[in-house]
């Protein structure tokens, strides 16, 4: 899932200050699962904003709603009347959701209520960890299903740097050395011989480095009479 973390209330209060009527918009997708921007958080952030403004004697009208997903137009359409009523939207979705709302309502100010962190997993209750860098061509099959681009702080695909200590990364003892994880996995599945294979240079053109990406599936597109 996409993991996000809520922004500081004081920062939100400041950025929304010019707008009297605000819609706090939750998303039922990843941010609900990672407890950053679902219905529950919409309630909490709305209450916090109301209190914060009231302390200053400011009058702001805070509306709340949560849709199934902010990254699909089908669900965004549902809230058209609510968006028209307010001066600004505070989207608690990931960065994609925020932009999707802004694209649909081009004349409405839209602000992010969370910081989008990474593609990751719930490691244990209360702890989410990064697993995927969305490089555009998954290579984990060569590395015992451990991603060197994500798990190694230097994105090294051809072995560990000289900085690892006791299986931990030189960046922080809190971070596992990605190459220790790869080594342990390959050992466990009997594929240590893979370590001698030279890794090809990473083709960064498949990643964001190649420009903003798009996936097109012709078989899924709705053909209009003009598009043939």
């Amino acid at each position, binding site marked *: 899932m996409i993991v996000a973390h809520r922004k500081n209330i004081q920062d939100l209060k400041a950025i929304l200050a010019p707008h009297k009527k605000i819609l706090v918009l939750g998303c039922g997708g990843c941010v609900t699962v990672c407890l950053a921007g679902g219905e529950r958080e919409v309630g909490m952030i709305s209450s916090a904003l109301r209190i914060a403004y009231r302390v200053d004697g400011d009058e702001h009208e805070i509306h709340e709603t949560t849709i199934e997903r902010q990254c699909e137009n089908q669900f965004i359409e549902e809230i058209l009347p609510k968006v028209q009523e307010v001066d600004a939207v505070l989207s608690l979705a990931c960065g994609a959701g925020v932009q999707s709302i802004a694209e649909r309502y081009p004349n409405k100010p839209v602000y992010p209520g969370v910081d989008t962190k990474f593609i990751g997993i719930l490691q244990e209750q209360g702890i989410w960890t990064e697993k995927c860098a969305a490089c555009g061509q998954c290579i984990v099959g060569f590395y015992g299903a451990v991603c060197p681009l994500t798990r190694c*702080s*230097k*994105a*090294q*695909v*051809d*072995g*560990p*740097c*000289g*900085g*690892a*200590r*006791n*299986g931990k990364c*030189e*960046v*922080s003892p809190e971070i596992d*050395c990605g*190459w*220790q994880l790869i*080594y*342990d996995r390959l050992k466990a599945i009997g594929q240590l011989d893979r*370590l*001698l294979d*030279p*890794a090809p*240079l*990473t083709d*960064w053109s498949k990643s964001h480095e190649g420009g903003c990406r798009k996936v097109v599936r012709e078989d899924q597109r709705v053909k209009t009479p003009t598009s043939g």
Partner: protein
Amino acid sequence: MKSGSKLEKLLTAGEFVVCGEMSPPQSADGEQIRKKSEYFRGFVDAVNLTDNQSAVVRMSSVTSAILALQNGLEPIIQMTCRDRNRLAMQSDLLGASAFGIKNVLCLSGDHQSMGNHPHAKSVYDIDSIHLIDMVRNMRDEKKFECGEEMKVEPRMFIGCAANPYASPFEFRVVRLQKKIEAGADFVQTQAVFDTKVFEEFMKLVRQRGLHEKAHIIAGILPVRSTKALLFMKENVSGMSIPDELINRMGGAEDPKEEGVKIAVELIQQMRGIAGVAGVHLMPVMWESIIPTVVERAGLLPRPQPAAPEEEQPGEVIPTVD
């Protein structure tokens, strides 16, 4: 000769080489390099110019190396994958070669979070092994990484680093093998303090015959205080410092003298290990101690590479009209 560098000539001739390491200034003061050159000229065979070591901004390695060359030293430029993508690396190699620089040490580089610009974006477009392969390809095949050809190739003697102390230990010799197969001609190791682990590492190196494919130069780091040892033990990644050594420095009346003694002893031990082709002295910010250490290790005078064979003047044949 792959590069014709002095370092290559000496290693090929079987000399036990001595390399040094200079930190370029944290300013635009080129004069510092001229001054520091005095500590190296005539005492070491080649000098590494570090590349923003510990991710702290300093004068660039290539420009420092040009200054070192002008001051009579044989420079080894260091090149990390942290600050440059493949375009910048190749263009720097072309420029360095045009200035007469003939040695390069290919490194991953310390992570930017360890230095004085922790908010910087790192590059890591390619790995150090890819860098080695790229330099070899430029030199031997006259090809850029993209496959396009060049007219005049950078003739570099290619170095890599090896750290016997970093985890996973079992992988370290494999990694060195990959670097040598990619094209590394010489190897400079992490500073050796723990000789037991180093000897074990060299045993594995010899088992794979790696010492016959590349020249292995052992890192020696002269220290002048217990504090320095403790700092490295705690903060410098991939270092192993035995407690006996810390106790020995702690009990010394003159820590500087003790530091020199330890360095000299380590050099002697390295000379006794099969497959070690030289030592690399890296006295971090204590370059002035180099002449003393080299002299007391009995490594003076430094050898000069044999002069290229003069062409024998042929018999003068009188021209007949």
